């Protein structure tokens, strides 16, 4: 897309969005309040979703906005309620090791980006191999307008079946580890039973308080 002439507007959008990502990441690393961190990680996902749209990866941006900003923020909020509200400050000497690891990984990633093809490069490996074949034959094979859908559903139906199974197994695994969550419902019903029949209050209604 940005092959023929350098697009100043697109470059500015990229710089602004990536700069925002950088600022949010630094803020997350420096904050101690878990609530603020959860909210900022949602903002991080939203900004990266906007950036995916800017580099023409609309489907990825869509998924990032739904999963990263919507779903994982809500789940992290639920997890945050189970712990304390602030993170313990780490000694500054012990922060040195993780900092070195981060800097080394970052340098390696920047070194790797030198070899990456430009955005939308028609000669990149992703566009010359099987991707081009999909673009050519998908319409004849399936008659579906959006080429992403037949790639995910038809050509790579096994992958998508595997992904759906992984999501299902993840849900079942979390539920098996943490319980299905019916405790809060049971507790509310118990509280309502306790508060409603004031007149014929029985003494055994009180021993439902024990919680594991």
């Amino acid at each position, binding site marked *: 897309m940005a092959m023929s002439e350098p697009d100043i507007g697109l470059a500015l959008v990229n710089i602004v969005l990536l700069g925002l990502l950088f600022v949010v990441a630094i803020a997350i690393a420096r904050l101690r309040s878990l609530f603020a961190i959860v909210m900022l990680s949602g903002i991080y996902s939203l900004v990266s979703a906007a950036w995916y749209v800017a580099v023409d990866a609309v489907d990825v941006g*869509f998924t990032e906005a739904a999963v990263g900003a919507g779903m994982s923020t809500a789940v992290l909020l639920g997890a945050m309620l*189970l712990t304390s509200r602030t993170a313990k400050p780490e000694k500054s000497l012990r922060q040195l090791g993780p900092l070195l690891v981060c800097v080394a990984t970052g340098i390696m990633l920047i070194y790797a980006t030198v070899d990456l093809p430009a955005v939308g490069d028609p000669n990149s490996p992703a566009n010359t191999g099987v991707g081009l074949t999909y673009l050519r034959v998908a319409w004849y094979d399936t008659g579906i307008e959006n080429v992403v859908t037949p790639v995910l*559903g038809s050509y790579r139906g096994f992958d*998508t079946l595997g992904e759906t199974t992984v999501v299902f197994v993840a849900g*079942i695994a*979390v539920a098996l580890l943490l*319980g299905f*969550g019916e405790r*809060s419902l049971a507790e509310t019903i118990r509280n309502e039973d306790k508060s409603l029949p004031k007149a014929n209050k029985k003494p055994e209604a009180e021993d439902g308080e024990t919680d594991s």
Partner: protein
Amino acid sequence: MKSDHHVILRVITKTLIPVIVLFGLYVQFHGDFGPGGGFQAGVILAVAIILYALVFGVPSAMRAVPPAFTRSVAAVGVLLYAGVGFWALLQGGQYLEYQALFGEEPGGHHGQHVGIILIELGVLFGVSGAMLTIFYAFAGRVAEIRDEDW
């Protein structure tokens, strides 16, 4: 949550949730033509119910959409997806070969459309059920979100 200073939040949420659900269904059934599909639609539908749970309390959301229902829906979704594969097998094709669903020649698109709609429905059920199960597992451990937690 008993006091009434969340009234703006509740009113806005009540008007937003139908729009979110409608958008989720649009993403689901418009996936053939634009960005979107079962995965995104499943997450959006799950988020609509999670928003309800965050504002009105997890127990009332559990009364509307019980945890037993969400995990059943997740299982039904995976079974539906895998079942389309077996349907193709029974018609004499290969696993998940939509072309074989109605025994079409190459170039026939009816089986592709039906197969993809069915597996996208399976993804929708699987993802939304699993996401809600995960949310209930986390959020169901605390009885009620108190005001000072926000």
